[in-house]
């Protein structure tokens, strides 16, 4: 596979082949992360497509210091957050006030757990799930997660710690181990 930096350089010159190659590698990664974070394949696909478009339009802003996939996931998480904000605004009040923020997200995005792993992750709140998925599946550094989700490194650590405790309880409750 050609070097990622070279591909990005070619992509910046609007080389369609380079863009196809770049996303052939990174798109499944992005979509996988979003499916785990949103818990909804259709919503994940929509967010991923939005993120790809934004990434292409803003390609000049990418710095090869970080992996392209990291930058792409960061854009996707911003897109996802914006969608959640919009969905919250559009929700009927009783859903937000009675069921709470996470249930409101589930309601808005029609979240559906399809497997043990998905339903386990679904037991976490959206902010903890994002942090856990990025660390556990994608090996992001604390700083990368902090940049991606827009919070301090200390908050990332505490969310990760809480997520681990909650998952442990959930695994025990379901008798998965």
């Amino acid at each position: 596979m050609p070097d990622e930096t070279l591909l990005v350089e070619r992509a910046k010159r609007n080389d369609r082949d380079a863009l196809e190659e770049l996303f052939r590698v990174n798109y499944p990664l992005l979509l996988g992360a979003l499916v785990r974070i949103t818990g909804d394949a259709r919503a994940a696909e929509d967010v991923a497509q939005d993120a790809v478009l934004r990434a292409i339009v803003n390609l000049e802003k990418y710095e090869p210091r970080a992996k392209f996939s990291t930058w792409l996931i960061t854009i996707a998480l911003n897109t996802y957050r914006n969608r959640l904000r919009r969905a919250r605004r559009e929700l009927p009040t009783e859903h937000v006030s009675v069921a709470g923020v996470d249930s409101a997200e589930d309601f808005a995005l029609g979240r559906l757990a399809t497997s043990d792993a998905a339903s386990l992750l679904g037991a976490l709140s959206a902010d903890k799930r994002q942090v856990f998925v990025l660390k556990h599946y994608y090996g992001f550094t604390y700083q990368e997660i902090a940049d991606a989700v827009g919070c301090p490194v200390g908050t990332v650590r505490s969310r990760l710690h809480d997520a681990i405790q909650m998952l442990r309880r959930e695994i025990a409750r379901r008798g998965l181990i």
Partner: protein
Amino acid sequence: MNRECEKVREALLDMVYADASMGDIARHLAECSECRDYAGALADIAVVLPAQQDDCAAAGVSSDWARLSSTIERGVKLRIARERRAVGLFALTAAGILAAVWIPLLARSPQALLTLQAVGFSGIALFYLPIHVLRARRGDDI
């Protein structure tokens, strides 16, 4: 410094600032049931949610390549349109500056017309310069 360095340094920082070596950690785990429990939680999670599964097939979905391809096409068109707008804006600004400087001169002296023409040609050359630079950079039509 690459990403791997960053991860190793993060782990080192965690160890140094927590003032703990692997030996310290092992000793503490032997004594502290809460931390043993936490280490157990990490191990359980690693079993139930294998971390190697890092693409969408593992997450139970497949990529829609046709949709992705059309999104890429749309993105490229948006980029080209933006570049065209930038060139157009540059041309408009250049034309405005030329008009502001040379029209008053032309009114004073008809001889200035010749000079205006010379400057006009220079202006056109200047206007096309960014287009040629963009073409050269991209290697195709604008």
